[in-house]
């Protein structure tokens, strides 16, 4: 590690242990997001234990829509991997993965009928759900509840002054709110607080809570692209210069749909989409190259250069 890329020395942090559930989209399509997450976790002293043999979460929209029973059985299987590692806390980087595993862990603990049925299937592969995992959380949740924003602020070496961020919460990061117990389902503030802690501005925009459209896109892309147009227009009107997400489905959708909106409506939007972990890494002093910022489309390079990050 070069001197310049070394995170703030001198801040001593208590270690946090997590079983890392990576899911499929991030490692197989967006490895640069995995990279920024790992870089940031190292700085935050979050110890990540890989969950060997973990598979698809599976998708809480697609697979659950086809077979609820398969969905909960496969996500419970993922939870049992953490149990077998004697891990009590699972962390995910994707809102969909966290939803699937959190739902499974909750239902299996509270619904004896479901637990018996799912365990019967799991017995065929010599597994069983025991209920020893205490928390399943998204990285952003861990940041708030376990690391704390004061610590995050103390680690900032390069405040992101000049970034006007349109925060996109995405639906499943906070909803169902009864399950997540994280934030208000209509007026959330947690991610905005993180953005501000990094020195950037969180821009209020009308369509902040509008879905990225991934769900409807599976069945009807025409509706999805209209929703995307509405969202981008609102982001532009509010004067934001980038979008921040915490879910790989939202990430891919909000990057790709800028091309779709151009094709369908002839409107051009060029908002770089950044993951929460990218913003943290940059604010902690890591170089854009280290987290492969060139992999983002549209490219955030010019924007970052304009605030002195190169």
């Amino acid at each position, binding site marked *: 590690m070069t001197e310049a890329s070394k995170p703030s020395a001198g801040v001593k942090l208590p270690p946090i242990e997590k079983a890392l559930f990576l899911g*499929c*989209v991030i*490692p*197989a*399509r967006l*490895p*640069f997001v*995995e*990279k920024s997450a*790992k870089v940031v976790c190292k700085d935050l002293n979050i110890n990540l234990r*890989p969950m060997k*043999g973990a*598979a*698809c979460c*599976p*998708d*809480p*929209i*697609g*697979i*659950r*829509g*086809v*077979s*609820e*029973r*398969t969905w909960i*059985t*496969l996500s419970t*299987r993922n939870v049992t991997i953490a149990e077998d590692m004697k891990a009590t806390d699972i962390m995910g980087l994707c809102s969909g993965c966290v939803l699937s595993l959190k739902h499974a862990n909750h239902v299996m603990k509270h619904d004896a009928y*479901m637990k018996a049925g799912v365990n*019967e*299937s*799991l017995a*065929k*592969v010599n597994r069983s759900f025991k209920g020893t995992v205490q928390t399943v959380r998204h990285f952003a949740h861990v940041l708030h509840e376990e690391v704390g924003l004061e610590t995050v602020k103390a680690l900032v070496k390069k405040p992101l002054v000049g970034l006007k961020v349109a925060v996109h919460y995405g*639906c*499943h990061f906070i*909803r*169902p*709110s009864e399950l997540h117990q994280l934030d208000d*389902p*209509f007026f959330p503030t947690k991610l905005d607080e993180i953005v501000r802690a990094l020195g950037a501005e969180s821009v209020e925009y009308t369509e902040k*809570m*509008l*879905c990225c*459209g*991934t*769900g*409807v*896109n*599976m*069945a*009807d892309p025409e*509706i*999805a692209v209209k*929703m995307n147009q*509405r969202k981008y227009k609102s982001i532009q009107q509010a004067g934001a210069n980038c979008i921040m997400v915490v879910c790989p489905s939202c990430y891919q959708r909000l990057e790709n749909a800028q091309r779709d909106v151009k094709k369908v409506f002839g409107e051009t939007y060029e908002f770089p989409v950044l993951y929460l972990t990218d913003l943290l890494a940059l604010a902690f002093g890591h170089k854009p190259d280290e987290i*492969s910022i060139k*992999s983002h489309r549209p490219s955030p390079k010019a924007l970052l250069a304009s605030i002195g990050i190169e």
Partner: protein
Amino acid sequence: MASTIDFDFRNKLLKMHGALSLTYCYQCGTCSGGCPVAKETNGKYNPRRIIEKSLLGMKDKLIKDPVLWQCTLCDTCDESCPQKVELTEIFYVLKNLAVKEGFVPDAYKAQSTAVFDNGVAVPYMAPMIRARKELGLEQNLEENIVIPVQELQTLMEATGMKEIVDKFKAEKSAAAPAPKPSE
């Protein structure tokens, strides 16, 4: 499509895991008022109507209509329903029933098939494996991305997914032109 009321279907639905909250609905329309898809389709997509049809047991109008799949699963309706009707839970129950009767969008078929065959929705492709190496993500990369497909398939067979995917595959090969015998 005749709009017959099917009490058997209604009663069957009410007994299904996740669908009980149907009976709380008093048809206020709050769910449709906040629904982003209802907004984009000028009300052609309408969650209150799906709940109403479910209460009336209008089976064909529910499971044969592609509208069932237009929900983007944002959970806005569940969060705002004054009666705590679990709309999206009910939609999942309906979708699972529609799948059993063969009504399911292609993208869902493709995804289920991919998860059945590979154990993951998004398999690792060679360029991504290279990108991961360049980013220094793992030392024993090949070892870490081994997915226990066999184990997952056993579970998918036990939970009914195999049967469903087999049907998707059979449909697909019936629709595709027969391969030339010489190949």
